[in-house]
């Protein structure tokens, strides 16, 4: 058993056995004694005042235990949902933070807004009774599009923001950009929309809350990506409960993609009501509810300008974005179109002057927050679309214009706050071009043309900031939380190991990859390592899983805890081997005296720690259990090149992605199979954004038109080709595993690559996403929109 033996191996996932045989334990599977069920009454209107709520008929319905509305919540002194990131506007003023009540207080602001909850003996009874609640609404005009929120005459959602503006925020050097633009040899301008997406994790949101009089404590089972954060926000900011009396468990969770990060009204209402009724209460969203009430993603309107010299070297980038936040601030919504967006506008390029201004607005739509990529797909879309357009205008090859502008020396301080540690963009692009057979494209294009089809090729050389985040930097930028991660390594007397991690696995495969890391480091079999996550009673603390942070931040916490274990093990070994601490080395699972054959295996050290008979009790405590909290010193910067090739049938507008090549630099790779899986998933989501997915609210009525899979088009396996996936490795310089994170990259690069290919095929400046057959047909045949 060699050190680092499992690292780099495609170990099959341990989680899969229970998932594939239906033995998983999801929140909806959990049935508590005396279980009751909740059904939420939601607003059918985009914007309305609530004149009255009549509960009488519902209360008389079979099986009904209680009905709660906003009045009950207010009487119970339940606070609204908090926002975890304070953005300061261009005038130094804090952003507007309107109340976000868990049940509507006099007004509803989007279709799906939570108005009341019915609790009954069965889910069916709760649902039936919920239909009997009569709400008298005074319907108000609504506004749904980001670009319309600040128009004259637009209805006001919140009194504290009469013009529906949450903040106007800026980053970069405006004066430097203005100066450089004025003297630029050429300026490329592009206006585009980053379309709103609905997350649609395969498991809908669910919660089951119980209060126990026996210990005056609560347990909340909830489909969450971060149970400790859920607990902290709920107890400290919303319900005023003692944090140590509340246990939050996120059991098996069927995908999150960001949508399960946030504190939502439903679990808060359930937790509060569980005490009122002294009954456990369970709620599982149906898909229609998920469409309406899960936090949506993206929804930006942007104008970008790229200034360059006569050789296509970028001199300045100016970006103006209006970002739709939806009707209320969700937990992290304020930082997505700012901190996680504008700071990536340098891309892979050495553009010296950048300025971004973001206006965030409220509209009568579902709250918008992080969704796979969270701000970075939006940034990549801006940069990679305008760079490709610039190449076309300058009559330069799109790969060549990028080469002329790549950052080549590291570390590199960008003009938008980030310090890139390392990368090799040139190598990644060269690999991708080779794998994509770019050289053969002209011939393939000609062959397509013979069949009456249009073929196009597009690039996206993306970069992202992952491993969020150094707490002091985040705090300076407005974060109201720390962004470290925690790990506890518990070695049992028999040498088996339990790893408690603050990261959460809801598809990432941490039970496998983290076990690989621990087993490799300790030189023990993987079967001897158990990974525990998702339970605030078991795991010391955690900020959770999102932003591709688990391996970089969570993994480093694990390594640091392992370092402490090994350090203590060395002391124990030194005592047993009668040597000095500094003469002991740990290699291949054994503690030994350097330069001799004398060694003791890890398991024996473990047993000695718990049966300390031959032991330096005067200097060392028994036991072998260490924890570590790791606060990252920087973000990590995965980067890569995506190349997409499409073929369009101009007769119908149908577009097929013929090839998609991705060469990504994720630093060191722990499990290539899992990384590849993440890339495949991310690419499919990115292609989905570009080609098929689009959330649509009717501008007149504010109704959610795409309220089901009949109208919201999720990409299927036959919508995408087999991917060509490769990696480049420049190890991260500031974490011991050398890892950068890989979960979001596909979703970040793919949309720009696809749309660059489509605009190339059609010979146009821009095509709106999703590039549906109808849209493409109109453009290809010059039909009115």
């Amino acid at each position: 058993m060699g050190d680092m033996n499992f690292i780099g191996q495609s170990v099959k996932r341990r989680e899969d056995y229970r998932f594939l045989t239906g033995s998983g334990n999801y929140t909806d599977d959990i049935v508590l004694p005396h279980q009751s069920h909740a059904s939420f009454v939601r607003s059918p209107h985009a914007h309305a005042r609530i004149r009255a709520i009549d509960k009488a008929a519902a209360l008389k319905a079979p099986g009904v235990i209680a009905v709660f509305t906003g009045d009950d919540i207010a009487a119970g002194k339940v606070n609204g949902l908090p926002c975890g990131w304070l953005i300061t506007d261009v005038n130094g003023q804090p952003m507007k933070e309107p109340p976000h009540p868990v049940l509507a207080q006099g007004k509803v602001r989007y279709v799906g807004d939570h108005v009341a909850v019915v609790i009954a003996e069965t889910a069916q009874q709760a649902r039936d009774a919920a239909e009997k609640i009569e709400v008298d609404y005074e319907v108000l005009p609504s506004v749904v599009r980001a670009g319309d929120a600040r128009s004259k005459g637009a209805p006001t959602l919140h009194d504290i923001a009469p013009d529906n503006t949450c903040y106007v925020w800026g980053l970069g050097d405006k004066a430097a950009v203005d100066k450089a633009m004025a003297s630029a040899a050429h300026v490329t301008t592009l206006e585009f929309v980053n379309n709103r997406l609905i997350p649609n994790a395969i498991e809908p949101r669910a919660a089951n809350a119980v209060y126990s009089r026996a210990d005056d404590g609560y347990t909340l089972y909830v489909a969450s990506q971060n149970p400790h954060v859920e607990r902290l926000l709920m107890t400290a900011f919303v319900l005023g409960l003692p944090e140590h009396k509340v246990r939050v468990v996120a059991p098996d969770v069927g995908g999150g993609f960001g949508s399960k990060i946030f504190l939502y009204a439903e679990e808060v209402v359930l937790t509060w009501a569980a005490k009122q009724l002294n009954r456990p209460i369970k709620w599982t969203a149906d898909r229609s509810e998920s469409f309406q009430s899960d936090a949506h993603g993206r929804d930006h309107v942007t104008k970008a300008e790229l200034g360059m010299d006569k050789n296509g070297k970028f001199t300045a980038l100016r970006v103006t974005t209006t970002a739709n936040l939806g009707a209320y601030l969700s937990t992290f919504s304020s930082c997505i179109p700012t901190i996680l967006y504008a700071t990536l506008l340098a891309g892979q390029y050495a553009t010296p002057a950048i300025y971004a201004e973001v206006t965030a607005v409220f509209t009568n739509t579902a709250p918008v927050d992080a969704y796979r990529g969270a701000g970075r797909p939006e940034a990549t879309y801006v940069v990679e679309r305008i760079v490709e357009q610039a190449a076309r205008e300058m009559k330069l090859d799109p790969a060549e214009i990028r080469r002329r502008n790549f950052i080549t020396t590291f570390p590199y301080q960008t003009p938008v706050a980030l310090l890139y540690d390392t990368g090799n963009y040139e190598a990644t692009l060269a690999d991708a071009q080779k794998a994509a057979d770019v050289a053969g494209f002209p011939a393939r294009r000609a062959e397509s043309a013979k069949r009456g089809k249009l073929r196009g090729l597009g690039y996206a050389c993306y970069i992202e900031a992952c491993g969020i985040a150094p707490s002091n930097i985040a705090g300076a930028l407005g974060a109201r939380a720390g962004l470290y991660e925690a790990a506890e390594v518990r070695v049992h007397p028999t040498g088996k190991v339990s790893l408690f991690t603050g990261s959460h696995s809801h598809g990432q495969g941490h039970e496998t990859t983290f076990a690989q890391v621990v087993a490799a480091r300790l030189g023990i079999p993987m079967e001897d390592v158990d990974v525990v996550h998702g339970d605030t009673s078991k795991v010391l603390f955690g900020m959770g899983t999102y932003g591709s942070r688990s391996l970089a931040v969570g993994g480093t916490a694990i390594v640091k805890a392992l370092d402490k274990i090994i350090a203590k093990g060395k002391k124990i070994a030194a005592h047993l081997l009668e040597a000095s601490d500094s003469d002991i080395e740990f290699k291949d699972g054994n503690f030994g005296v350097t330069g001799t054959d004398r060694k003791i295996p890890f398991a024996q050290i473990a047993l000695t720690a718990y049966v300390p008979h031959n032991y330096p009790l005067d200097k060392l405590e028994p036991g072998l259990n260490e924890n570590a909290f790791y606060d990252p010193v920087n973000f990590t910067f995965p980067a890569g090149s995506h190349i997409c090739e499409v073929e369009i049938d101009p007769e119908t507008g149908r577009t097929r992605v013929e090839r998609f090549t991705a060469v990504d630099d994720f630093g060191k790779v722990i499990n290539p199979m899992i990384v590849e899986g993440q890339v495949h998933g991310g690419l499919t989501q990115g292609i989905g954004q570009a080609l098929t997915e689009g959330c649509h609210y009717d501008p007149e009525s504010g109704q959610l038109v795409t309220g089901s899979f009949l109208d919201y088009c999720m990409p299927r396996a036959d919508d995408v080709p087999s991917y060509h996936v490769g990696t480049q490795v420049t190890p991260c310089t500031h974490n011991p595993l050398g890892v950068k994170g890989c979960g979001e990259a596909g979703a970040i690069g793919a949309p720009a690559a696809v749309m660059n290919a489509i605009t190339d095929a059609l010979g146009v400046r821009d095509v709106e996403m999703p590039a549906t057959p109808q849209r493409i047909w109109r453009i290809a045949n010059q039909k009115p929109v």
Partner: protein
Amino acid sequence: MYAFQYRKANTLADAAAVLSRNADAKLLAGGQSLVASMKLRLINPSDIVDLSGIKELAGIKLESNAVVIGAMTRHAAVASSHDVKKAIPALAALADGIGDRMVRNMGTLGGSVANNDPAADYPAAALALGATVITDKRKIAADDFFKGLFETALQPSEIITAVSFPIPKRAAYMKFRNPASRYALVGVFVADFGTGVRVAVTGAGPGVFRMPEMEKALAAKFSPDAIAGIKVPEANLNSDLHAAADYRAHLIGVMAKRAVEAAA
């Protein structure tokens, strides 16, 4: 779903009796439309009468100039039937393209035809082939059967037992799918009987309809260029997020052309 009473019918007469007694009762064939509607609480049937136990309702019979398919025959069975593939391959191919594998294992011909969803595939085949819908009471020609949006000539407790499809000289079905639902945005079934040509369109309007101008042109010359110049009117065509009327009108022309190419 709302609460309902489930009944399994042993005979056709049993099923018809429940229907005539109870206006809120519904027949359960494959359930691929019915159950979905019930789950969304769009309908509230008091009773569900399951027809799957009535053996004589399923089956495929090859006659001298027609294929007679029992109402409870699943799409997958039609798609894989040696007789249908030989006699009317376009019909087998159509069945093979309905929904997905799970839908095809459960969905039935009778259910599809009785429901008359404006984007269903079978109505296009029935209308283009000039099929006869056989019920427990009478026989109805396809031209008289499909009345409008989810509306047919069936009386309240009348039950389809089979559909008889005349065998054409050649035929084909081309469907352009709604990318999200994968239902027919536009589906065109073209059938050449030698004595005449019939063209039926589904997906584009409130119900399936024929294209007389195309039928005439194709009867004179069965080739794509015979209909290339025909401009399909937009009036009365559906318009939604996925396809406005003008796009559908255009797709009708394209799918018809491709169907003729495939059939020739």
